[in-house]
């Protein structure tokens, strides 16, 4: 497959560089910043984990990078993909990057696939949006893509509809869509949250394998600290739209500096121990009515 010119060149610079990103929602009661002054870097072959609870702004961050913010939201700051500023680019220019240089995997694979079309069409349309090829050629690409995400009998399954697949299979299809144009950056927004734990393990393994094969940079957004500790080399902890703490995964998990990170780590239910919070905080009820 020919790589188009917009594709990143591996010249040693950061793949994605976000500086001072602020996402603002205009509301009748004034502007609200859902993300404020956020900065991070993603390198090739690396995974950056962004963790936070609901309302932390982690999903808005990913949509801002993709240029897919909902109506009423504006982003400011700087987003550089392979050294080129993409914030403020026209929608037509961004469209050439979306799906091609940067792709996304979403949380709920069933609702993220259109129930009216075969998975084949939903993969080929992604490929054909960026490659001027015949239907037949695109179909071959789609079969190969299904094969790469380890779906059996891809030449048969390509003509099936999303509802004919299990949850884990659907997420594999989403990954196939994201990877079919060989993007430099993949943003995965809670890609395993809706899945069963055994399926989650399989999908995480698949994503790691594919990343090793293709060398893409990845942003892995999740609320699950244990998952992020396994997949990411670097972690940004977010709360209320701001970065609480950032560092290497080892740093964050073995020597967290910020109280919020510590509280979050303490609150994770563990398989081998009782809840730390119960041991640490005397009267948990007082903390509840904050």
């Amino acid at each position, binding site marked *: 497959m020919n790589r188009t010119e917009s594709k990143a060149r591996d010249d040693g610079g950061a793949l994605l560089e976000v500086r001072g990103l602020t996402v603002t929602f205009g509301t009748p009661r004034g502007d609200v910043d859902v993300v404020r002054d956020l900065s991070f870097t993603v390198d090739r072959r690396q995974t950056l984990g962004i963790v936070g*609870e*609901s309302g932390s702004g982690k999903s808005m961050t990913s949509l801002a990078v993709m240029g897919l913010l909902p109506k009423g939201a504006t982003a400011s700051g700087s987003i550089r993909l392979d050294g080129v500023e993409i914030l403020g680019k026209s929608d037509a220019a961004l469209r050439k990057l979306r799906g091609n240089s940067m792709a996304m995997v979403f949380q709920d694979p069933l609702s993220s696939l259109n129930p009216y079309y075969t998975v084949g069409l939903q993969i080929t349309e992604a490929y054909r949006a960026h490659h001027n090829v015949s239907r037949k050629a695109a179909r071959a690409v789609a079969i190969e893509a299904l094969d790469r995400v380890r779906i059996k009998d891809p030449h048969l399954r390509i003509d099936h509809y999303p509802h004919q697949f299990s*949850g884990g299979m659907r997420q594999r299809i989403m990954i196939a869509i994201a990877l079919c144009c060989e993007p430099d950056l993949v943003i995965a927004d809670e890609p395993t949250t809706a899945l*069963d*734990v*055994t*399926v*989650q*393990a399989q999908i*995480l393994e698949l994503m790691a394998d594919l990343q090793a094969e293709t060398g893409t940079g990845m942003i892995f957004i999740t*609320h*699950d*600290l*244990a*998952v992020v*500790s*396994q997949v990411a080399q670097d972690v940004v902890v977010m709360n209320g739209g701001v970065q609480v703490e950032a560092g290497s995964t*080892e740093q964050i*998990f*073995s*020597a*967290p500096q910020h109280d919020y990170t*510590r*509280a*979050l*780590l*303490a*609150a*994770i*239910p*563990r*398989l081998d121990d*009782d*809840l730390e*919070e*119960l041991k640490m905080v005397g009267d*948990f*009820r*007082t*903390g*509840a*009515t904050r």
Partner: protein
Amino acid sequence: MSAGEPLLEARNLVKEFTTNTGGVLSGKKRAFRAVDDVSFAVGRARTVAVVGESGSGKSTTARMVARLMPADGGSVLLDGEDVTHGTGAALKHFRSQVQVVFQDPFSSLNPRHTVDRIITAPLDYQGMGVPGGKRQLVKGLMERVGLNPDHSGRYPSQFSGGQAQRIGIARALAVKPKLLICDEAVSALDVSVQAQVINLFKSLQAEDGYSIIFIAHDLAVVRQIAHDVVVMNRGAVVESGTRDEIFDNPTQPYTRSLLAAIPTINPEWEARRRVNEQRERAALT
């Protein structure tokens, strides 16, 4: 009644759903067993967790036990009495003893009712009188679940997800039930809030002595709350036992694969973090 007798027993529960095979238009129907011969017992003041992945039949089992769905086979015994098919007064009595806390706190609370009205609704249904008055009871319950009692006139939308779940718990506890059925009651909550609600369930149980059936998919959460664990897969019980039996010595391959799949933090990092934090705390004192 002897103390050793379980509070609730589910015996050979069965639930079948008919599904269309080969498309709606073909009209071929097939019975599908969502719950197949499931039995377990819940001891007094104990928490039994029923765990499984989606499609395991755990929620269907809970609904049958809670009498929210009729069983196609088997029976449910509460205090040794068969409560599987009771109606009218018998069902009402059952509801005064068994209460349910649901997964999504907001969709299970009427948005047009005040907290006050939500919490007292089961009492009104039961026609129960309250010594000291309902107002006093609501305030007491709100305090017990960690809500500000002055907020009893507010509506569910004015609360956060964790607080709304506390309202649901207060409502369930209003009739002083013997058994609480929690259907994925902490799954929708953020991790910090989840920990608080788990602890709330435990401490209230220590005070009131009710039993809990805790339906969950998250084994790590189950580890924190359950005394006994029932592992389900494809409608059937795979394995059951005490918490430590299941977590430390699972006998079934399915249970083992379930436990192995749970993502964990590098234990080395965990140990270092704890040492760091202890050191800091020691430096402070």
